[in-house]
């Protein structure tokens, strides 16, 4: 399973904002860490703002701030803002869909979709931040996030 670039950027940006709750981060700061243009990231942030996961603070020292609940917002919640998840559900017009072979294949694909959905629905942003700490190559004493 591979996420679209925009979806990945949204998750990365949210992690940065969650671990920096007292700071506003600009798209330039976040974009620099992940090697992506501010223009591309700005579009992603607009989607997150519409979903009320981040808010934009204007003026000097402004930027984006996380305003959701990191212990309740799951990866699935974020992903579904940007892309459909899974194999697309039943499409009666797809070739072979009404055959026994088509139904058997659909059963297997549904099993994969259900597992993926359950996994992504069980990882909150707060949990992902803990995972980030566990996968950080530097010692735990190193600073987290951009700062």
């Amino acid at each position, binding site marked *: 399973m591979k996420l679209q670039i925009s979806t990945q950027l949204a998750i990365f940006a949210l992690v940065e904002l969650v671990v920096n709750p007292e700071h506003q981060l600009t798209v330039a700061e976040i974009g620099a860490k992940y090697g992506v243009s501010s223009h591309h990231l700005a579009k992603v942030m607009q989607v997150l703002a519409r979903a009320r996961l981040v808010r934009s603070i204007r003026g000097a020292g402004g930027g984006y701030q996380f305003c959701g609940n990191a212990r309740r917002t799951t990866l699935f919640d974020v992903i579904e803002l940007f892309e459909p998840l899974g194999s697309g559900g039943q499409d009666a017009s797809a070739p072979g869909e009404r055959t026994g072979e088509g139904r058997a294949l659909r059963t297997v694909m549904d099993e994969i979709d259900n*597992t993926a959905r359950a996994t992504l629905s069980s990882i909150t942003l707060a*949990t992902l931040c803990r995972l980030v700490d566990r996968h950080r190559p530097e010692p735990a004493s190193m600073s987290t996030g951009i700062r």
Partner: protein
Amino acid sequence: MNKASGKRTGHLRSRAVERRDAASAPETGGKFVIRPAEPHDIGAISALDARITSLSKKRHWQDLLARSKSLDFAQFFLVAEAPASSKSLLGFIVGEIRAWEFGSAPSGWVYALSVEPTVREHGVGEALLAAIEAEFKRCKITKMRTMVARDSPLPMLFFRAEGMMAGPYIQLEKDLT
């Protein structure tokens, strides 16, 4: 059922757990005690479970408690209890060391974990899980496992937040109708 390999040598007696966020946890008085379950707890355990699952299974909890007291099984049945003034049950956890089923090396299985709904998010579940984890570790167990229904978001989110990830096994089943 397996006899315990590396059966515990010293059972947990009781441990007071003080929360740093005591001010925000008035229902627990900011602290609680984790201790092994006793026969007089069964009524409260059964009632808490029945409130959450809508199923009463007192006999089941009695059987598990008996196993936890038997030297033939490495089973742990712990409860979280409010301070001395009320001594009300805040939650419980049950786990057991199982070996070589499904080809698995000895591991600690968490069978049940329940927390009184009014004191959730105050660290009771976290403390119970940490306590049983300590028991498993004391028995030289290096892997802890549990099983959660896909459509049960609350326990799924809890165990994930505690660092548990998908393991190397996939549960399979078949309708026998």
